[in-house]
C-alpha cells in the first residue's frame, strides 16, 4: 500500500478539486459585480491566494511527509488534533454534499428532468466513492487523465467558438471601482482556497517540498481556467445577459453553430466537465474519509465507503429543499465558509506550528 503520486498528479487533483463546480457559478457571480472586467478578478484573487500557498508550503515543509493529522497531533496534542479533524470532517462533508447537489441539479435541469434527484445523486456519489476507494494513486491518475481531456476539449471549444466572439464586449476596460474589483475577487478566492486539499495528500508525495509546488501550479492553472471561462462567457454573451443565466458558460458554448452538422458541440465539453465533477466529488470525499478515519480512529473499510456514499447522498438531497436554495448557499455562505475554514483555520494552524516549533526549539536550547 505504499502509494505515491507525482507533482503532476497532485496538481491535477488540486485543479480538479478547485475548478469544475466553480466554473459553473463564477462567471455569474463575478460578472454580476464587475461586468465586463470580470476576467480580471481571478488574477486579483490569485494574489490573495499567494499567502495561503506560502502557508501550505510552510506546513508541508514542517510535517515532513507525515500525514497532516499526525503532525498536528505531535504539535498540539491529541485532543486539539481530533477537534481540528472534526471541523475539517464537517467542512468536507458539507462541501462534497453541496457539490453533489450542484452536479445533480445541473444534470437534472439540463438533461434528465424527470429522473429522481436521489438516483442521480446516488450514482454520482457511487462513482466518486468508487474512484477514491481505489486509492490515492488511482485518484491521481484519474485526475490527470481528466485534466488532460478537459484542457483538450476546452481548447477545442475555444477554437470552435471563434466566430461567436465579440471583443467589444470587453470594452470599456476597468470601468469598475477598485472596491468593486476587490469584492468580485472574493468568490474566486473562496473557490481557490480549496487548494488546501494538497495538505491531505502529503504522505503520498515523493517529497514534502512538492506540496507547495503542486499548490502553486494548481492555483495558477485554476486561475487561468477561471479567466478563460469568464472571458469566453463575456466575449460570447456580453456582460448584461450573463447574470440572468444560471449556467452562462454552457449557454455560451451552446451557441456554436457551424454549418448544418457542427451543433451542440458544448456536449463534448460538458462530458469532460462531468468527468471533472466526478473527480472533484471523489477528492472531497477522500478528504472527508481521511478526517473521519482520524477523528474516530477507524480503519479503512468497505462498509465505511457504503456509509459515506449514503450519508453524502442524504445530506446532498435533504439539506436544501429547492434547487435554488443550493445556488443561494453556494453563492453566499459557502464562499465565506471556504475562506474561513481553509484560509483562516490553516493560518491559525500555521501560527500554532510556528509557536510550538519555537517552544520546542527553546526547550531544546534549555536542555
Amino acid at each position, binding site marked *: 500500500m505504499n502509494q505515491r503520486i507525482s507533482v503532476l498528479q497532485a496538481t491535477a487533483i488540486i485543479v480538479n478539486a478547485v475548478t469544475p463546480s466553480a466554473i459553473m457559478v463564477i462567471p455569474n457571480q463575478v460578472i454580476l459585480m464587475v461586468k465586463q472586467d470580470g476576467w480580471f478578478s481571478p488574477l486579483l484573487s490569485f494574489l490573495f491566494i499567494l499567502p495561503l500557498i506560502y502557508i501550505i508550503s510552510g506546513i508541508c515543509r514542517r510535517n515532513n511527509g507525515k500525514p497532516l493529522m499526525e503532525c498536528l497531533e505531535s504539535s498540539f496534542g491529541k485532543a486539539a488534533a481530533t477537534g481540528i479533524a472534526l471541523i475539517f470532517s464537517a467542512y468536507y462533508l458539507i462541501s462534497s454534499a453541496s457539490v453533489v447537489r450542484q452536479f445533480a441539479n445541473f444534470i437534472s435541469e439540463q*438533461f*434528465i428532468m424527470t429522473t429522481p434527484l436521489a438516483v442521480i445523486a446516488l*450514482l454520482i456519489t457511487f462513482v466518486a466513492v468508487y474512484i477514491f476507494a481505489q486509492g490515492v494513486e*488511482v485518484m491521481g491518475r484519474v485526475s*490527470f487523465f481528466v485534466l488532460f481531456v478537459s484542457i483538450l476539449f476546452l481548447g477545442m471549444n475555444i477554437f470552435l467558438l471563434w466566430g461567436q466572439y465579440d471583443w467589444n464586449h470587453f470594452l470599456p476596460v476597468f470601468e469598475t471601482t477598485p472596491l468593486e474589483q476587490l469584492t468580485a475577487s472574493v468568490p474566486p478566492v473562496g473557490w481557490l482556497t480549496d487548494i488546501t486539499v494538497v495538505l491531505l495528500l502529503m504522505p503520498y508525495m515523493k517529497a514534502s517540498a512538492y506540496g507547495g509546488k503542486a499548490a502553486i501550479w494548481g492555483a495558477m492553472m485554476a486561475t487561468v481556467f477561471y479567466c478563460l471561462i469568464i472571458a469566453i462567457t463575456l466575449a460570447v454573451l456580453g456582460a448584461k445577459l450573463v447574470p440572468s443565466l444560471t449556467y452562462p458558460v454552457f449557454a455560451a458554448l451552446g451557441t456554436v453553430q457551424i454549418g448544418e452538422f457542427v451543433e451542440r458541440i458544448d456536449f463534448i465539453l460538458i462530458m469532460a466537465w*462531468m468527468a471533472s465533477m466526478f473527480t472533484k466529488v471523489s477528492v472531497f470525499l477522500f478528504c472527508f474519509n481521511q478526517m473521519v478515519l482520524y477523528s474516530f480512529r477507524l480503519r479503512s473499510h468497505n462498509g465505511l465507503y457504503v456509509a459515506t456514499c449514503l450519508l453524502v447522498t442524504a445530506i446532498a438531497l435533504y439539506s436544501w429543499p429547492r434547487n435554488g436554495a443550493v445556488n443561494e448557499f453556494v453563492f453566499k455562505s459557502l464562499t465565506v465558509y471556504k475562506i474561513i475554514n481553509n484560509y483562516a483555520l490553516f493560518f491559525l494552524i500555521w501560527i500554532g506550528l510556528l509557536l510550538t516549533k519555537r517552544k520546542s526549539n527553546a526547550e531544546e536550547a534549555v536542555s
Partner: protein
Amino acid sequence: MSESPKSGNESGSDAVKALSNDLDANIKWLSGELGTEPDIVIRRFQVLRNKRAALVYISDISNDASINTLMMSMLDEGLKPVADEYEEEPLQALMLRSITVGAIRQLNSLDHVLLAILEGCSVILLDGFATVIAADTGGSEKRGVEEPSSQTVVRGPKEGFTESVRTNTALIRAKIKSADLRMEYKRIGKRTQTTVVVVYIRGIAEEKTIQEVNRRLDLIDTDSILESGYIEEFIQDKTFTPFPLFQNTERPDAVAAGLLEGQFAIIVDGTPFVLLAPVTFIKFFQSSEDYYQRYDIASFLRLIRLSSFLISMLLPSLYIAITTFHQEMLPTSLLISLAAQREGVPFPALIEAMLMELTFEILREAGVRMPRIIGSAISIVGALVLGQSAVQAGLVSAAMVIVVSFTAIASFVIPSVNMGSAARLIRFAMMFLAGTFGLFGIMAGLMIILAHMSGLRSFGVSYLTPLSPLVPGNLKDVFVRVPWWAMKKRPSMYGGEPTTRQGSGKQSAENQGNNSQEGKRDR
C-alpha cells in the same frame, strides 16, 4: 521398503520411495502402477554379457526409431567382450558405450521413474542397481509448424506455435540467439504434470518480476493444467475485471518482441497459446505487424484500432443515449431520417439494441462453434434473414442494424481477442447506463472504467502506463509508432534497465546519405 511401495505411496507423498536393487521387484512395482495396458512395453534383455536388464516405455508416446536404435545398440553390447574396468560399474559402461539417446538422466526414486515413463522416456533398469537410466525417447504425434489461425498478418513471419512445448521453445530460440535467454521449466498439475516454461531474457526482464511469477506459479495447487488459460486465471493480479491481464499469442515473433522489451513468456505444454506479461492496456493494440510495416501506416492503423475499441465499447450506448435522451445533438436531417425509420418499430431503442446485440453475439458464437462446411448457411441466415428481413418487417430500424454491424466489425479490428471480449462485456453495461441516464450514465460508466483501469496492475506494472502515470519516454510506441531508429531506448515500463536498443546518433540511412552528400558538396 521394497515390499510395500504402495503403502508408502498412500501414507504420504513426502517420503521418497527409493528403487530396489532387485530388477524383478522394480518391474513388478512399475507394472502394478502402470497396469497392463497394451501400450506399456516392458522388454527384458541382457547386457554386458550376463547382466539382466529391462527397458520400460510407453509405445504410444515414444519414438519408435530411437527406441529401435537404442535396443540395437544395447543388444550389440551384450555380445561384445567387456573390458574389466567396466565390470564394477555396468551402469557407467552402458551410459558411456551403448546408449544412443542424447538426453539421459539417472533416477533413484520410483516416483520419478514413473513420471519419466509417463513423459515418454525409456527407462533402462539394470539388475542389482537401485539407479535407473531414463533416456528421452519421447516423441508422440505432433502438428507441424503452421500459420497461426488467430493472429494473421499480411507481412511478417507466417509460423505459429504448436501444441508441443519443445517446438515452441525451439521457435523462440531460433529468433533470439542469445545466451541470456532463460527458460525455467516447471511441472504444474498433480495429474496432468504439465510442463510450464517461463521464458525471459536475463538483464532485460526485471529480476523481481521473475521471482514473483515463479512464486505465483509454485503456489498453484491444482490437478490439471490443460491450457495456458488455466495458468492465466491462477496467477493474474485481479480476477474481477473484464480486462485481460495477460497477453496471449500464437506468434513466436510477438513473443520474441515481448521478451526483448522486458516481458516474460509462459509456455504451457499442449497449447499453442503462449502468455506474455507484464502487460499494459496499449499492448493489446500493438499488432506485431506494426513493427514490420512502415511507421506512418502503422501509426495510422494503431489509431484506427484504438478508435475501434472505443466504437465497439460505446457506439450502441451512444446511439441509445442520443436518440432517446439528447435528440438535439443530431443534425435535423439525420434526426428526421432516424425518426422516419423508427416509425412503427415496436421496441424502445434500448430493447431494440439489446435484441440486436444479443442476436449478433449468438450469430458470432454460432460462427465459431459450427462445422466449417455449413459456414455459408449461417452468414446467409444472419445477413439476410436477421438483418434485412427484420428491417423490412419493421421489427428493428435500419439505423440500429447499421449501428450493431458497425460495432461488430469494429470489435474485430482489435488485434487481441480477449481485449475485444472486454469491450463486448462493457458494451452491455454501458447500454444499460445509457438507456437509464443518457450521456450522464455513459460518463459515469466511463469514470468507473477509468478508475478501474488506473487501479489495475499486471505484475506490478500499472495497466495504463505510459499514459497514466505518464512516462513521456515511453510514448513513442503508444498512439503512434515512431521509426525504428528513433526508439533508442527499450520501454522502461516493464521494469528492468532501460537499456539501449540502437547505437547513439541517428541511424537512418537517409541521414547518413545526407551527410555523405553534404560531404561531396564541400569537396
